[in-house]
Each structure stands twice: as C-alpha cells, then as structure tokens.
C-alpha cells in the first residue's frame, strides 16, 4: 500500500527508523503549533527537499496530496469569510476578512509541509519498522505487538476480501444504492471478521507452541548498531529540528516585542 515509497535507496531510507519517526514527530509538532507562517514556510521547503532527497516518485506523492487538497478547498471556501480583522473585499452579503484569510493560508502551509515531511521520513518505512521505532521510542510492548501483527495480516485479509468480492462478482453482483447492495457488502465484511477471528485462534496456538506465555518479548535492533550507519543524516535532521524550534521561538519573541 505504501509500496511506491519503500525499497528505494536514499540517504533518508538509510537513516535509523527511530530517528526518522522522532524527527518527523518533532517537526510536525513545531509546525502544527506555529503561530505565524514563518516556520510552516521553512518546513515546506524542508519537506520538498526531503521528498527529493528520498527520491520518492513524484506522481505518487501528488496522488497522496489530493485528499488534502479537497479538504483545503472546503477550508478556503469557508474560512476567509469568518473571524475579525480588516475587511478586504465584499461579495454581496459576504465579506472577506483578513483574519480568516490568514488562517486559511496558515493551515494550508502547515498541512502541506507536515504531510511532505511525513511522506519523506515515515512513509518510507515498512509498517513493522515503524512499529519497532515506536517501541524504541518508548511505546509499550503490547501495543507494539498489536500494531506490528495487524500490519502483518492486513495483506492476508485483503487477499481474502478480494476473493470474496470476486465470488460476488461472479454471481452477477453490481454495487448500487440499495439495501441488497449494502447487505451484500455487510456479509462480505462479516465473513472477513469471522475468518480473521478463527485465524487469530490458530495464530495464538502457534505462538503458544513456541513457548509464548502471555509476555511479549520483542526482538529489536540494539541501539548503537542502529545509529552507526547514519550519523550524518541524523545530525542534519536534528539540526533542522533545532533550527525550526529556534525560528519559532524567535518569531514569538519578536512578535511579543512588537506588541509591547
């Protein structure tokens, strides 16, 4: 599902997963909490740069941005007419306000830049690698196990779904707006649930047979080995986090000085 983004050889792909997830989270956080467009703009530049460094196929990147674009269009239709501030323009009863316009702009910048950073740093990971990264960053073992295992079986269950869907097609089923159609999809989904639960029983048995006693013991990379190959990238990423944070602090302090 994120097939187009993994299995690429790039400096980012060679960076330790834990570092990537941590940096992506910190960058998202600073950007999301920014008060002015300065940091989001910097993050946007950083995001575009990272996507290029990660050598992501640009067509796939654009496709992933589409849903966000739809959401932002909705935002741009509504937000400029809300809030206070100076009136910029009037369309009949509606007035375009500076506040709303700025907010729409700010949100668009933030959303795009965060998404690009996420794509370059996190979507370039296998799901299980992300699970282990989160574990290394302090997520409980049980939750890691839950994430990693459901990621493991999504493709198996997806294949089962395709087969059931094909079986329905073979018997002349055409989706439309009708209770029959909804019921059919409900039956497919319910059958999928039943099968996944039966499989869970078998998988649990397999675990028990290999000495599982209710305690999850994960096998993760030992730390030093994880960082060794990617010190330069880690340094650059850490540096960019520091720069963005510093930028935001500077902006806020400057902004405070202006106000008083």
């Amino acid at each position, binding site marked *: 599902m994120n097939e187009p983004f993994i299995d690429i050889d790039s400096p980012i792909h060679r960076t330790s997963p834990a570092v990537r997830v941590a940096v992506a*989270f910190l960058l998202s*956080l600073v950007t*999301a909490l920014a008060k002015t467009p300065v940091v989001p703009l910097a993050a946007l530049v950083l995001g575009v740069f990272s996507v290029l460094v990660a050598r992501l196929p640009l067509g796939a990147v654009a496709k992933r941005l589409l849903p966000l674009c739809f959401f932002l269009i909705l935002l741009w239709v*509504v937000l400029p007419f*809300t809030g206070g501030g100076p009136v910029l323009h009037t369309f009949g009863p509606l007035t375009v306000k500076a506040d709303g316009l700025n907010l729409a702009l700010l949100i668009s*910048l933030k959303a795009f830049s965060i998404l690009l950073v996420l794509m370059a740093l996190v979507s370039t990971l296998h*799901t299980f690698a992300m699970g282990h990264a989160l574990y290394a960053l302090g997520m409980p073992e*049980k939750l890691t196990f839950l994430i990693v295992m459901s990621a493991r079986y999504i493709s198996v269950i997806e294949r089962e779904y395709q087969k059931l869907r094909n079986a329905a097609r073979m018997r002349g089923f055409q989706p439309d707006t009708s209770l029959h159609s909804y019921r059919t999809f409900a039956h497919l*989904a319910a059958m999928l649930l039943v099968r996944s639960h039966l499989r869970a029983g078998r998988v649990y048995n397999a675990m028990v047979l290999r000495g599982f006693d209710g305690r999850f013991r994960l096998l993760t990379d030992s730390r030093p080995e994880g960082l060794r190959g990617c010190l330069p990238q880690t340094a650059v990423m850490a540096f960019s986090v520091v720069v963005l944070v510093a930028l935001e602090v500077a902006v806020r302090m400057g902004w405070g000085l202006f106000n008083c």
Partner: protein
Amino acid sequence: MHISEGVLSAPVLIAGAVVAAGGVAYGLKRMDGEGTVSAALVTSAFFVASLIHLNIGPASVHLVLNGLVGLVLGWAAFPAIFTGLLLQALLFQYGGLTTLGVNTVVMAAPAVAVSLMLSPLITRKGRMGAVASFGCGFLAVFFSSLLLAAALVFTGENFKVIAWASVIGNAPVMVVEGFFTAFVVSFLRRVYPELLLCLTPEPPQMEERI
C-alpha cells in the same frame, strides 16, 4: 473520519493525546495474550473493511465502522482504532502523527460509548436487536461527528461553520452505517455469536477455536 494536520490548536491536541493515552492504556490492560492476538487480527479485518466504498446515489462513501469495532472489541476499541489510524497515517497519509490523539478519541470514545449503552439490547432477537444495532452504527458516527465538531470549535470560532457542515454532511453516512452495522450484527448473531462481545462475557474456550 479524521482531522488533518495543521488545523487544531495546542490545547485541543494535548487534551486529545491525554484522553487517548488513557483509553489506550486501559484497553491494553484489559487484554490478555490471546485477546491481543484476536484484537490484532480483527483490527486488520476492520482496516480492510474500512476500505469498502458504498454508493449513495452518484456519490460513494467509505465506511467508518466504529460502532461495530466497539461491539466486537469493547474497550479494546481504543488500542485497535489507534493502531488503525497509525497505519492509515503511515500507508495513506490520512491524518498524521500530532493529530493521532484527537482522532483516536473522536473515533474510539463513541465506539466504547455505544457498546456500553447498546450491548445489552443487541442480544435481543427480532426488531429490538435490529434497531439497537442500527442505532449502534448510526450513533457512533453521529457522536464522532459531534466530537470532531467540538475539536474544531474549541480550536477557534472561525471553524463554527465547518464544524456544523461536517455534522450535517455526515448524516447520510450515519444512515448507511446504521444499516451496514445492523446487517453485520445480524450475520454475526446467527453465524458466529462468539464475536459479539456482549454475547461472550467470558473468553471462548480454546477447543472451539481450532
């Protein structure tokens, strides 16, 4: 149903993360080893099922399914939905990392709520059970859209219109989810009642699983 990155304010994000962490921790605490394995595979099944698109006239909507998640998993809905959202963020870039907490609460709190409220009625045969399971699907989406609206409104007055629009815009989804949930519950009740939490106060015996 999720909120994109970059919209919400710090207090809302933090509140969401705190509540989500509590819910996830409590959900995890209630799962034993076998329960975790079941939850993991059922979560994958829900993940796949949530990719199903249903037609409403010329438009098509994809399913939310949180009412059903609540009925099947109970409190484990929190870790399950957290997992689903995390994987969605990773695989499709829906939502993101900083909004993970808020989005988890928006989806999982209604799931747990409807399962606590309506589980006892789901077991009823006939019309009562059907209405209760319709209600489960309908209300879970309704509550979710209210929570989502609340998160927007607490972020800023500017979002009032969008918040209301999203509640109203989700109305058809609520109805479709209601029917869908009712059909799935009726299937499970007839075929595999073990899967409906309310019908199995105790975990099923191992013999039945092989």
